């Protein structure tokens, strides 16, 4: 989505009614953020909308990017937000070999998740349950972590359900939405 460098377009204030709607939508999509919502989207602070190319809207608080959205698709969290609240999202893990592909903006392929270094929900290797017990359907927003790394490297939308991935072990797993080092990551909102 942001393979190229982008220049931010017009910035506008979000009306308080729209701001409430966004807050509700964030909570609906990411209920685990509930305890922190007042820190993330303080009721009194002004939320801004920055237009990005290809009909993407980015919501920011001052110079802090929070969520972005393509047209009326789901709100996706900016990676800086994911890094602050890592376990408030559905997450999967790729093996080490897949990292460099993800960081160059490639579509994530299923083998990167099904190989020994990868993790999907209900993974027998995942004793602490970090990657959840709930199988995920296509269309779900996922945060992608990486083998041997503490922080997430990508946020995207699943193209294939996790159960199907385990069976097929091939094919496109997740669309590259936003990854470390992409145009959105490098965007200067100063």
């Amino acid at each position, binding site marked *: 989505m942001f393979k190229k460098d982008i220049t931010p377009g017009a910035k506008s204030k979000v009306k308080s009614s729209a701001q409430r709607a966004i807050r509700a939508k964030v909570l609906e999509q990411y209920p685990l953020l509930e305890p*922190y919502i007042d820190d993330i989207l303080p009721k009194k602070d002004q939320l801004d909308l920055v237009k990005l190319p290809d009909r993407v809207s980015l919501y920011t608080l001052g110079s802090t990017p929070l969520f972005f959205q393509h047209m009326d698709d789901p709100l996706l969290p900016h990676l800086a937000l994911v890094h602050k609240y890592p376990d408030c999202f559905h997450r999967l893990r790729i093996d080490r070999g897949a990292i460099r592909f993800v960081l160059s903006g490639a579509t994530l392929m299923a083998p990167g998740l099904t190989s020994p270094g990868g993790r999907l929900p209900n993974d027998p290797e995942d004793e*602490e349950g970090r990657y959840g017990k709930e199988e995920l359907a296509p269309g779900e927003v996922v945060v992608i972590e990486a083998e041997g790394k*503490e922080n997430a490297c990508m946020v995207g939308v699943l193209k294939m359900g996790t159960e199907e991935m385990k069976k097929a072990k091939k094919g496109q797993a997740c669309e590259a939405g936003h990854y470390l080092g992409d145009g959105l990551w490098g965007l200067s909102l*100063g």
Partner: protein
Amino acid sequence: MAEPTAYPKKVLYCGVCSLPPEYCEFGGTVKKCEEWLKSNHPHLHEKLYSQEALEQNLSSLSLEAQKRAEKDAQKKAAKAASAEAKAQAERASSKVLIKRIERNKRKYVTAVQGLEHFGLDIKKVAKDFGKKFATGSSVTRIPGGGEEITVQGDLSDDIYDYVIETYKDVPEDNVECVEDKKKKAAG
């Protein structure tokens, strides 16, 4: 379930490539990243760049994948190096123009163009000008594309001195003062 760690979690980002340092190895500036981490966060440097850590990174990849990753890393490094060289060449050939523009009789504004070629944030510089000279200073778009700083008043000489003194990355030879008379033929 374990008590969640205090949120928001503080994540450190690399001062060179902006990624979390554990991902620096996948960019084209690993050497610089490592130096930065070593001098700024020696503990983390020890953890990420220890012999052990490096070996462990390699052992999780097949031999073939290692080779491909190495090639990839070289390509990225070359790309980053050429981007750096290009930026340097651009800097060397870029000019900062300080224009004195007559607005009305004996009323002037000073326009400054080209500072962005020297890695400066125009908006910040405009603010600094305003503070330094206690005058109106704003960023405006140039018709042909790009942006310039417009400062109220005839300040070309002062701005010239200030730019050279404050922004060491801007060589004196690359700064030029010009006069822009209002009577330029229209059309």
